[in-house]
C-alpha cells in the first residue's frame, strides 16, 4: 500500500512536469488542441498502467512524448481516413523526442488557454487538471465527486470550443494579463481547496492539493512580476505546509488550535514567507497576498495562544477592502472575537446573518460564541441549523468534523 503510494507520487510528479508542455507542443505542431490533448491523455493512461506494472522508465519524459506522438499521428490518420482524404494529406514526419526543452512558457500559455473566460468556469478547472497537470478523467471525477460521464462531456465540450473558437495558446498581452491571470489563479485556488478539504488516502491516487501548490509555484516562477501570482503560491504553500498536522491517526481533522506545530513543514513556511516578501516589494497588494499574510501569521506563531490577533484583524480589514464578500467579513468577525468581547462579536455576526443565512460556517461560529456566552440551548440550535444546511452525505460528514473546528484560518 505504502509502496503503491510512493509510486503514485512519483507518477504524479513526472506527469505534471511533462503533460502541459507536451500538449502545447503537439497542439502547435498539428494545429489541433483537441487532438493533442486526447493524444497526451491516452499516453498518460498508458503510462499509469505500464509504469505501475514495470516501474517508471529511465527517461519518463521521452517515454510519454513518444507515446503521445504516436497517438497524435494515429489520430491524424484516423481523421484523414474518415474524410477519405488520406492520399491527399502529406504524411506527418516523425519528430525525434525533444527532451531538452524546459517547456515552462508552453505550460503557462496552455494554462491561460484552459482558463480562458470563454470557457465555462467548471470546464476550466477540469480541462486544466487534465491538460496541464496530467490528471485522468476518473481521477478528476473522484476528486470532485461528479460522475465520469458528466465530467467527460464537460471536457469534450470545452476542448471543442478551444479548437473551434480559436482560443490561442499564448500568454495574454500586458493590458489583459491582470484580468486573465485572475481567472487562472482562481482555478488553481479552487483545485487546492477541493484537495485540501477532502481527506487524503482512500480512493485518491493523486494529491490534488500538492498539484495545485506545484501549479501555483510554476505560475509564480513564470510571472515573477505579478504580485498576486506570488501571493497565491505563498498562500497555498503555507496552507499545504500544515497538511501533515491536519489529520489525526483516525483520519479526523484536527483544529488549528490543537495542531502539533512541530509537524508543520517549516522549510516550506520559510519559502512562502520569502515569496510573500518578494510580492510585497512589487507594491501591488491583492487578496491572495493578504490571505497569505494572514496564513503566515498563523504559520509563524509558536502556539495558538500566542497568535498575534490584532495583526490578523488588521490584515482582515485590508482584505475586506479588496474582497468585501460576506465570507471574508465573517472571518474578520471571528478574528475580532479573539480580541474583543464575545457578546459584541455575536452582535456583529448577527448583522451579517442575512447575507450568509445559508452558509453553514456562520451558524457553526454563532454556536461557538453562544456556548462561550453560556447559552447552550441556542448554541445547539445553531449547530443543528448548520448541519441542516448540507445536502449530501460527504458534506454532512465534512461538516460534522468542521463543526468541531474554528474556521479561522480562512480557506481551509
Amino acid at each position, binding site marked *: 500500500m505504502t509502496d503503491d503510494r510512493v509510486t503514485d507520487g512519483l507518477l504524479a510528479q513526472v506527469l505534471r512536469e511533462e503533460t502541459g508542455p507536451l500538449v502545447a507542443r503537439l497542439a502547435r505542431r498539428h494545429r489541433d488542441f483537441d487532438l493533442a490533448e486526447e493524444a497526451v491523455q491516452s499516453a498518460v493512461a498508458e503510462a499509469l498502467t505500464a509504469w505501475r506494472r514495470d516501474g517508471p522508465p529511465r527517461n519518463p519524459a521521452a517515454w510519454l512524448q513518444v507515446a503521445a506522438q504516436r497517438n497524435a499521428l494515429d489520430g491524424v490518420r484516423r481523421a484523414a481516413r474518415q474524410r477519405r482524404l488520406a492520399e491527399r494529406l502529406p504524411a506527418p514526419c516523425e519528430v525525434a523526442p525533444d527532451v531538452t526543452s524546459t517547456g515552462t512558457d508552453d505550460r503557462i500559455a496552455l494554462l491561460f488557454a484552459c482558463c480562458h473566460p470563454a470557457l465555462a468556469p467548471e470546464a476550466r478547472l477540469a480541462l486544466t487538471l487534465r491538460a496541464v497537470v496530467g490528471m485522468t478523467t476518473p481521477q478528476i471525477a473522484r476528486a470532485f465527486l461528479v460522475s465520469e460521464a458528466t465530467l467527460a462531456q464537460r471536457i469534450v465540450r470545452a476542448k471543442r470550443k478551444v479548437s473551434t*473558437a480559436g482560443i490561442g495558446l499564448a500568454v*495574454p498581452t500586458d493590458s489583459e494579463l491582470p484580468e486573465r491571470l485572475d481567472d487562472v489563479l482562481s482555478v488553481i485556488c479552487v483545485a487546492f481547496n477541493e484537495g485540501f478539504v477532502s481527506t487524503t488516502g482512500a480512493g485518491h491516487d493523486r494529491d490534488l492539493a500538492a498539484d495545485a501548490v506545484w501549479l501555483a509555484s510554476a505560475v509564480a516562477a513564470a510571472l515573477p512580476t505579478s504580485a498576486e501570482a506570488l501571493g497565491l503560491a505563498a498562500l497555498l504553500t503555507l496552507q499545504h505546509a500544515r497538511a501533515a498536522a491536519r489529520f489525526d491517526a483516525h483520519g479526523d481533522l484536527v483544529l488549528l488550535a490543537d495542531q502539533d506545530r512541530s509537524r508543520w513543514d517549516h522549510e516550506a513556511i520559510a519559502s512562502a514567507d520569502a515569496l510573500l516578501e518578494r510580492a510585497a516589494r512589487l507594491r501591488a497588494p491583492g487578496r491572495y497576498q493578504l490571505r497569505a499574510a494572514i496564513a503566515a501569521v498563523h504559520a509563524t506563531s509558536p502556539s495558538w495562544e500566542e497568535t498575534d490577533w490584532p495583526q490578523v484583524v488588521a490584515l482582515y480589514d485590508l482584505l475586506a477592502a479588496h474582497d468585501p464578500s460576506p465570507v471574508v467579513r465573517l472571518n474578520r468577525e471571528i478574528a475580532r472575537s479573539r480580541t474583543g468581547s464575545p457578546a459584541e462579536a455575536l452582535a456583529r455576526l448577527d448583522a451579517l446573518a442575512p447575507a450568509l443565512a445559508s452558509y453553514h460556517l456562520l451558524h457553526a461560529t454563532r454556536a461557538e460564541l453562544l456556548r462561550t456566552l453560556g447559552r447552550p440551548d441556542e448554541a445547539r440550535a445553531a449547530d443543528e441549523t448548520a448541519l441542516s444546511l448540507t445536502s449530501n452525505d460527504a458534506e454532512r460528514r465534512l461538516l460534522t468534523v468542521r463543526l468541531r473546528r474554528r474556521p479561522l484560518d480562512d480557506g481551509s
Partner: protein
Amino acid sequence: MFTSRPDLDAQTGPETTSAVYRRIYEWFGEHSESIADGGAELMGVETATTVRHGDDGPVVVDGPFNEAKEVIGGFSVLDVPDLDAAIAIARTWPMLDLPGTSVEIRPMVVDYSQFE
C-alpha cells in the same frame, strides 16, 4: 453579432445616439485591417418577418425568430488570428457604453471537408 435591447435603446437620447454612431464610424476605420466584411446594420426588430418550420411546410410569421429582450442589430466579419484578438476588438465596440448591448463572437465554418 451586435445585439441590444430595444426597450433600453428607446431611452437613449438623440445626442448620445449620434455621438455613438460617430464613434462607430471611427471604429470601422480603426479596425479596417481586421474587418474582412463590414457586414450590415439591420433595421429594427419590428420590421422582422420569420419563416419557420411547420409540419405542413414552412410558415411565415410576423416578428423575430426568438421573442427575447435582446435582438441582433447587425453583424461584421472579422479576420483575426485567434479569439483573444476578436475579443480585443469587440471590447472597443462603441455601443458597449450603452446598457443592454453586447457583442457575440462566433467562429465561421471555413473547413467544409466534413460535409463532403
